[in-house]
């Protein structure tokens, strides 16, 4: 087998050296009756060519040739080939968590740079080395707020990504956390009156997303004010990180939980991505996940180590701040390389193109008879429109024209079955936007 570097003779030699007659002897500690007699019933062995063919065949059964207007937490952005060139280097790809600092300085310095970039982006003082994804990052942020405040009630805006809220509920169930949802106002932002009403001195955190799930940008200041007024932490979730190239960062937030997928990571049918938690220095010892810190070696040279490890499960065991061991180092590295390539200007320009295309798109779509804008509030690259009929039906018609229609809000928000979340990024050509508008017009003209 091509992955195994031993000849039959060498195996015999090694067995002899061990003093075993057969390989089975090495498995003697497994009770005879439990040892598999026949071979596993799994396909293979396949040559490299066959493996590639298998996956190409599967790829052909997916959405090739379609233009998509989906966002809703996973975004299609330009990615430079440089990013893959770097993360495919064996020294990054095939190394372990940098516990042995002396021979992991590459990974450690890259993480330190990632932490710096994330702090700068989010307007926070410190960011960790990444989490599984945005949904778990937001959940961990809430648990962090619980530890810091010693309170157990959490208020989550209903305009936060539905799947993020679901994950939070799963974790909350057994940690005695009480999750309550705050409705959204007519303009799609958090209903501030309802929020004030729900806020008492037992609330650990107020969680909002911006731009929120409807693409609407939340006003941080008043929300932060009400949260802090009752001693709760203000937690901001961000699913479209590119927006930070143009949007003022949530510097009012105590904790920011962000999905980094927009930074050089392919949609990849939902993962792997890279979550981020950023916060204030004074909270760092309650922050989950790994942290790279700068220090010096015995000769006074600058070097980096994983630090404050005592928060982690492998030391604290049952007292750990989280049970997460892996971060998403390679995804974080991809994001680091990607952002380094973009740089200050590139990120700003990318954000501006998203803004421009989205605003062009909404103007085109609103020309279509029967299409109305749902929320009258500023947005970045996603917006919600109302159609005269169920979005699902419209989408099935659109797909005949090789268009993957916008996200149908009806499933997570029953009251919004006729409302669609449209996403347009710098990757969507003007012609496709116009084709979409045309197709939508035709779809709506057809009798139901």
């Amino acid at each position, binding site marked *: *087998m091509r992955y195994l570097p*031993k000849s039959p003779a060498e195996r015999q030699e090694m067995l002899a050296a*061990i003093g075993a007659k057969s390989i089975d002897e090495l498995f003697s*500690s497994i009770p005879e009756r439990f040892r598999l007699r026949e*071979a*596993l*019933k*799994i*396909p293979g*062995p396949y040559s490299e060519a066959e*493996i590639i063919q298998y*996956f190409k*065949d599967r*790829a052909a*059964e*997916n*959405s090739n040739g*379609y233009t*998509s207007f989906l966002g809703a937490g*996973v975004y*299609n952005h330009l990615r430079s080939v*440089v990013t893959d060139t770097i993360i495919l280097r064996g020294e990054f*790809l*095939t*190394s372990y968590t940098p516990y042995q600092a*002396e*021979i*992991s300085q*590459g*990974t450690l310095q890259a993480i330190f740079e990632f932490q*710096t970039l994330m702090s*700068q982006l989010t307007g926070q003082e410190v960011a960790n*080395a990444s989490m599984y994804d945005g949904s778990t990052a937001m959940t961990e942020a809430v648990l962090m707020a619980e530890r810091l405040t010693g309170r157990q009630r959490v208020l989550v805006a209903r305009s936060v990504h539905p799947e993020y809220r679901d994950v939070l509920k*799963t*974790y909350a169930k057994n940690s005695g956390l009480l999750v309550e949802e705050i409705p959204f106002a007519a303009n799609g932002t958090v209903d501030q009156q309802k929020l004030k009403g729900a806020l008492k001195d037992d609330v650990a955190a107020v969680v909002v997303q911006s731009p929120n799930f409807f693409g609407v940008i939340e006003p941080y200041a008043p929300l932060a004010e009400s949260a802090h007024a009752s001693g709760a932490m203000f937690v901001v979730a961000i699913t479209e990180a590119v927006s930070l190239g*143009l949007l003022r960062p949530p510097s009012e937030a105590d904790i920011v939980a962000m999905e980094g997928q927009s930074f050089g990571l392919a949609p990849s*049918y*939902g993962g*792997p991505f890279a979550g981020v938690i950023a916060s204030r220095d004074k909270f*760092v010892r309650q922050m989950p996940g790994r942290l*790279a*810190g700068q*220090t010096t*070696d015995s000769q006074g040279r600058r*070097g980096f180590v994983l630090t404050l490890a005592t928060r982690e499960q492998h030391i*604290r*065991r*049952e007292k750990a701040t989280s*049970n997460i061991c*892996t971060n998403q180092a*390679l995804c974080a590295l991809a994001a680091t390389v990607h952002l380094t390539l973009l740089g*200050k200007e*590139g990120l700003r320009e990318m954000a*501006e*193109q998203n*803004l421009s295309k989205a605003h*062009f798109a909404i103007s085109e779509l609103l020309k279509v008879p029967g299409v109305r804008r749902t929320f009258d509030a*500023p947005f970045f690259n996603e917006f919600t429109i109302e159609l005269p009929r169920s979005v699902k039906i419209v989408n099935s018609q659109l797909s005949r024209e090789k268009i*993957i229609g916008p996200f149908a809000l009806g499933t997570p928000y029953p009251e919004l079955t006729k409302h669609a979340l449209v996403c347009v990024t710098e990757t969507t*050509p003007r012609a496709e936007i116009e084709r979409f508008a045309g197709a939508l017009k035709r779809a709506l003209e057809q009798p139901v």
Partner: protein
Amino acid sequence: MNEKIKKVSRHINQNEGLIFEKSSPGKRAFELPPLDVPAADPTKALGANHRREGVEGFPEVSEIEVIRHFTRLSTWNHAIDLGMYPLGSCTMKYNPRVNEFVARLEGIATEHPYQPQELSQGCLKILRLLEKCLLEITGMDAITLQPAAGAQGEMTGLLLIRAYLQKQGNPRKKVLIPDSAHGTNPATAVIAGYEVENIKSESHGQIDVEKLREQVTRDVAALMLTNPSTLGIFEQRIAEIAEILHAKGALLYMDGANMNALTGVTRPGDLGVDVMHLNLHKTFSTPHGGGGPGAGPVAMKKILEPFRPVPILVEKESGRLALEPVRPDSIGKVKAFSGNFGVLVRALAYILAYGPGVRQATEDAVLNANYIRKQLAGVYELPYSLPSMHEVVFSDAIQKKNGVNTMDIAKRLIDYGFHPYTTAFPLIVAGAMMIEPTESESKEECDQFIDAMKSIAEEAAANPELVKTAPHTTRVRRLDEVGAARKPVLRWKPASPRSEAAG
């Protein structure tokens, strides 16, 4: 080496700064295609109070600088591609490159989790086939591919157990965890809402079954067992252990971290295990990537099937596949979207490459571990005499006499071109040296490792100081972890009289 010297020579003494220190306004490494729609005015579109003028401190460099910066950093890492990486319990095996290739294919990497399922049949078929393979390998009845990593798999597994017991009226209080277990287990148990009760290993490092009998009460929800244990020893009475638990209505959870010792040889399902997680980044060769991403599928027996996290992959009568978002008894969602798909793709590519022949990989892994054990026994102390599976645990007892401990020896290994083994774990072995070669090491590589370990043992006796101050060949020497923890510097800040963060 003097930080001022910016000349770049051989990588071990190369002095590459932080990317921020190379930044200079006006440099670019990326250009976008021209905008083909009217430019929107940000201030008008967003409102002045939402507007931001670029990200302060963001680097401005050219493409070649980016390439060089990260390429130089990469040379400071050890990696499987460079040589043996014998970290115990981490299963640092070869990461096949075809896995990377297929994960990046157009139509695989490009797919959106919300696209219509009739346009996602390819993705769903991949998930389906992987499920089938993993079920066959583990001997279980049902599986979820959702969890993002081993630790989340553990949590998912315990939530399944909790939901199952809850359904029967009582979630129970305690989870039993052997003292040899990995630290994640207790951390997970607590997050799943359970108290942790440690159980002591008997003198051979196996679970003390007699004591277990007493400890398993109606309060016990489950036992979390790592098999083979972190000592690399197979839990011989596991079937009996399962019976004891089942008799009291408790379940057996198996940490599959060490599945590389069992794949194709025996099946946890047949051993009486009720639920287990797999680390695809260990046993199934997906790259560790410096610490993630991973994936931690959870395989289970029928009784737990109804509680699986959503979405659930189902086969419609038409033969078409679908992800179902709701299930009445589901524990809910553990992660947004549908698992770490990209990682799952790589794992399937690995399984297909071997097919049933994966047993050979397991045999070679165990062969390597036992070969190293044989050659180093006597040179280093073997705290437990039971036969080793895929990894072997020595202790530094002999070298301690010269004041040389496991960490010193580990660091000296670096000078010999190897990554250190796992130190100071498992906790029940003082000065543990936990070595897992995996099947990816040739006899030659194993022999070189053995020679290095022998040579270090000699040095430990003849010239302890040399070992205690290792490594000597790396770009940086032992780093001041105490200083790093006392006054954390966790991000770069522009050098200023006040801020020393830039070092």
